[in-house]
């Protein structure tokens, strides 16, 4: 077997939060563990879930005691996380730090510190950004800073790659395209469909502007008018829910449009299999895992042609439309006409061929191999890259990196690496769930570590009483 990597996945987004990024990190980690690599996840504390947790196959998760302040993001302190990240990196003997999602401040900070300490760094971008508004301009600058010195970058679709290359100025050959996948074992079609003339269209998304809830408001009444035997099931919650409910009342569609509210991920399949057509109305989307889940359940997908969506499925499994109500209605008409030709079981089998998390893990592994082959560089060799980021920003970035370097040197004196005890590796391989007793002699000299330990002990007590729900709920890909 090739070199065994020791990976730290970093993102603000991880379970118990739910979404595409969280899913991606979890499945990728599981498959990498299966391939024999060591994987540790780091995220911020969620509620009282703070300290160390274990998930299926001994996936170790550090919930560091940093509170989120906005949309599950930690407050950007730039240097605040350096001590704890250093401790984790040394304790776990990490060789590669893999950050996820451009929104995540924790990810940006971890990648910066990791580069300062000379670790190889990989970054995965999960979303698309425009270039016009103030928010994107700021985000793009931050991304440029992080990616200026990243070893390799990964994007989830070709469109996302184009976007990332434009935003960060990274050479295209450094950016890999590795899509998401779907756990086809979890999303299976309904064993036997009830033969009725009714056609059910399912929508599962957060009801927000970006997901095109306003488009739904115009499409649904029109489709209901054209096809008396069509029903809609809408799962999800959000600020636009009120508009949808208004639409339902205005057109007297209460008995034909069912609104479920937020659907927990464990129930998504049961909602999906009650329908025939999956409707995605996003206005922007880098990849869209929801489409994969629907297709895996044997649903025909109708979607807006935005971002990376056209790359996701073969043309005969999806009907694409312009993000415009009229065109969407046309696409739904077309979908209804080809629906009799669709065999859910066959579609599910095709999805098994097309998407597999193991494949994703193997491709990611080769990216890690390349990252490890990147030459080692000193601070002085790396600074010119930051300097080239812009006339003002470049100097600012350099200053930030130099201060980070000095802080790291200070930290090395205050807390030498030799004082930080490493975790024995064997713990992660044979250990299935429950507690890792090698960890009971945690961080003797490290104040944050001691805090972690304290929280961890508290969690242990809780865990003995009530086993971690997350571990039980997650089904394995194997």
């Amino acid at each position, binding site marked *: 077997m090739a070199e065994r990597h020791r990976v730290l996945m970093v993102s603000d987004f991880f379970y118990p939060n739910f979404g595409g990024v969280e899913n991606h990190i979890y499945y990728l980690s599981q498959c990498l563990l299966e391939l024999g690599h060591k994987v540790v996840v780091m995220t911020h504390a969620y509620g009282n879930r703070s300290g160390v947790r274990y998930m299926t196959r001994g996936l170790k998760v550090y919930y560091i005691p940093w509170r989120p302040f906005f949309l599950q993001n930690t407050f950007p302190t730039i240097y605040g996380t350096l001590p704890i990240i250093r401790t984790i990196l040394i304790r776990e003997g990490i060789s590669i730090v893999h950050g996820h999602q451009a929104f995540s401040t924790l990810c940006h900070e971890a990648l910066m510190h990791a580069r300062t300490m000379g670790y190889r760094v990989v970054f995965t971008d999960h979303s698309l950004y425009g270039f*016009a508004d103030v928010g994107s301009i700021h985000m793009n600058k931050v991304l440029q800073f992080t990616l200026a010195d990243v070893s390799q970058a990964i994007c989830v679709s070709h469109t996302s790659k184009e976007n990332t290359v434009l935003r960060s100025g990274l050479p295209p050959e450094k950016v890999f395209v590795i899509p998401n996948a779907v756990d086809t074992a979890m999303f299976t079609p309904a064993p036997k469909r009830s033969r009725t003339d009714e056609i059910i269209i399912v929508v599962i998304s957060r009801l927000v502007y970006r997901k095109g809830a306003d488009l739904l408001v115009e499409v649904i009444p029109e489709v209901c008018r054209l096809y008396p035997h069509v029903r809609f099931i809408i799962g999800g919650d959000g600020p636009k829910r009120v508009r949808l409910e208004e639409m339902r009342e205005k057109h007297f569609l209460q008995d034909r449009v069912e609104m479920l509210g937020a659907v927990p991920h464990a129930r998504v399949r049961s909602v999906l299999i009650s329908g025939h057509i999956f409707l995605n109305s996003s206005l922007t989307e880098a990849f869209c895992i929801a489409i994969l889940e629907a297709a895996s359940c044997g649903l025909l997908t109708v979607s807006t042609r935005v971002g990376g969506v056209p*790359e996701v499925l073969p043309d005969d499994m999806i009907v694409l439309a312009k993000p415009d109500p009229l065109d969407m209605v046309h696409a739904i008409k077309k979908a209804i006409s080809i629906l009799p030709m669709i065999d859910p079981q066959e579609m599910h089998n095709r999805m098994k061929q097309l998407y597999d998390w193991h494949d994703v893990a193997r491709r990611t592994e080769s990216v890690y191999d390349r990252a490890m082959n990147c030459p080692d560089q000193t601070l002085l060799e790396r600074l010119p890259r930051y300097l080239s980021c812009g006339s003002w920003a470049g100097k600012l970035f350099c200053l930030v990196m130099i201060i980070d370097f000095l802080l790291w040197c200070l930290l090395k004196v205050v807390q030498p690496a030799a004082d930080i005890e490493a975790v024995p590796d064997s713990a992660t391989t044979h250990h299935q769930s429950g507690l890792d007793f090698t960890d009971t002699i945690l961080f003797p000299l490290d104040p944050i570590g001691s805090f972690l330990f304290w929280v961890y002990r508290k969690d242990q007590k809780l865990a003995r009483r009530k086993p971690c729900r997350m571990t039980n709920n997650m089904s394995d890909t194997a």
Partner: protein
Amino acid sequence: MDIGNGRGIPAEQRRKWRKVAYGGMQPGYDDNYTDDSFLEDMVMNANVVKRDMVKVMLDSVIISQYLSIVALVGFVWTYSLQSRLDQKTILLIDAGLLMSGFLILLLTEGMISVSFLIHYLLNLSFSASGLYLLAPVYKTLTRSIRSDSIWAVAGGLLIVHLILHDYSQCFGRAPGMWICISLNSSIMASIFVASRLPSQGDVFAMMLFSLVFLFAPLVAFCIKKYSFRLHIIFSVLLMCYSLALVYRLHTVLFVVLLGLMVFIMVVCPYWLIRIQEYKLEINGPWDEAKRCFDITD
């Protein structure tokens, strides 16, 4: 490793690369393969309008025009505070401006109807009588404050008004917050100035004058809509007139006003054309879809 060039499979055996994410790694192509079609959907500077110098200069006239209107108002304020204009003259000016404004509106818009006229006269008489009733209050409003402070505040408010004024002149649209602030600061400035005047009659005349001056942008807009040439002639006349009056008032102010006008009508357009070259607008499939449907919340 030859980055991005496949894995040593002869070119004719390789299947064409497709821009798809499904089906795992495409045989013969690495994950970091960059096709020739990379970024082909990118559109640059799609919505950028090429401007030429003359057009920008002519467009900037409207700003100078408004500046000269404000300068004229300031001139009237100073003269009446120096008691060089009595209330009868100011009332005559008010009436004259109001009449000519109406005439211009009627001529350019062609809205000659009795009900329209009555409606406006009624409104005007309401506000005028309101002002007349409030004049004693205004007169004593700033008695405990020194004149210097009032001048400074009024000057500051006028600058705020000028900066935030809606030069695009979209009448009929709901005004934004900045436009409301601009309007309010001009009214406050006129109240402050009027409160320094000696008699109630003066205060009333001055407030009425300020009210009339609020309608100036509407009149200017109608002229511009009617004929652009007329608008330019009107503006140039207005600018010359205000420059001449300000020259009589103070030489330094004259120089400042002239400098500002040159800056607005010559330097700024040139500047805009220059920085236009650096414009870089990037659009592509990653953009959020535009609102091709209406949102009525």
